[in-house]
């Protein structure tokens, strides 16, 4: 794993850029981690609520079924009548969105449109029971709607928490080590270049010194062997007049 690094040229600019990216990755990592923690907290809360709501739903629906049985006792089977008479839904849902640290969770809300449904049901007999039953079922529906939005939130959060955790892990275990490897690669390569440069300078200096020594030595030899050679001075031969502007 340690061999993995990005394919960049080892230059100072790239070193700087990679360092900036490392800082960015670290910030992103801590942010994502905080997000995942916040979501997990919310998730646990929702799970608890779901369990409560499921138990509550069991009770509410039991009551509702009981009141339906009362209706059946007084008014006979109204099932067929009710099924045939349902035309347009009056109990509808509005879905709203709630923002939990950047995640949009749908929240369902009931909306009752138009008049009372089945106003005339149980007109001949058992009107009270029918009304009672209706109220029971409406409260049961409210519980169900609440439960449904919790459940949707549960599924969504589950998904998103997994995704966030995966991203956190990816940054922590892949991206940051890779950037760090790149940084160490670039700096070691730069050091290497520095050393080479230094060595070359030294070498050039020593070569120059050698050449100089050699020249001095040969100069001395020629001085001893022959008369000193005077170069011709071309400036001394002619004198220019001063130019005045």
């Amino acid at each position, binding site marked *: 794993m340690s061999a993995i690094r990005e394919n960049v040229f080892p230059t100072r600019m790239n070193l700087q850029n990679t360092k900036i990216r490392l800082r960015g990755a670290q910030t992103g990592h801590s942010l994502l981690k905080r997000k995942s923690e916040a979501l997990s907290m919310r998730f646990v809360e929702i799970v608890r609520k779901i369990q409560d709501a499921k138990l509550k739903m069991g009770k509410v629906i*039991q009551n509702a079924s009981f009141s339906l049985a009362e209706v059946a006792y007084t008014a006979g089977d109204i099932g067929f009548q009710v099924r045939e008479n349902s035309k347009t839904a009056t109990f509808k849902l509005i879905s709203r969105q709630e923002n939990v640290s950047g995640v949009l969770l749908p929240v369902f809300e009931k909306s009752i449109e138009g008049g009372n449904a089945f106003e005339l049901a149980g007109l001949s007999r058992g009107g009270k029971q029918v009304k009672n039953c209706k109220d029971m079922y409406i409260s049961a529906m409210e519980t169900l709607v609440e439960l449904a939005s919790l459940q949707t939130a549960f599924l969504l959060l589950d998904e998103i928490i997994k995704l966030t955790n995966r991203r956190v892990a990816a940054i922590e275990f892949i991206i940051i080590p890779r950037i760090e490897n790149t940084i160490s690669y670039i700096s070691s390569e730069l050091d290497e270049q520095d050393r080479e440069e230094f060595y070359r300078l030294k070498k050039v200096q020593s070569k120059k010194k050698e050449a100089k020594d050699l020249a001095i030595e040969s100069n001395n030899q020629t001085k001893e062997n022959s008369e000193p050679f005077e170069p011709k001075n071309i400036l001394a031969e002619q004198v220019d007049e001063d130019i005045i502007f």
Partner: protein
Amino acid sequence: MRKDSVTGMLLTGIGNVDHNQNSNFFVVDNKTTDAEISEKFTEFTNRKDVAIVLITQWIADKIREQVDDYTTTFPTILEIPSKDQPYDPNKDSVLKRVQRLFRD
């Protein structure tokens, strides 16, 4: 939405029948085959105007695999107890997931 006690739910006014006689509820009785249930389930879960699918638990048990495999968040599936069968929280596909999460 389907159940043998559909009546009670319809009393609240959730029933909707459009001009093609397509209803948003389905009554399952002893004669309904599993294939029909499964077909209706697919139909309801693919409908745009349905946000919550209510299904009684004993019917959900008949198509348990399909319900368990359903992972889309919208529409939501809610298993509800029916009139004559008691509610068993251990069978509910969402509660199963909840428990699995807590076991980990």
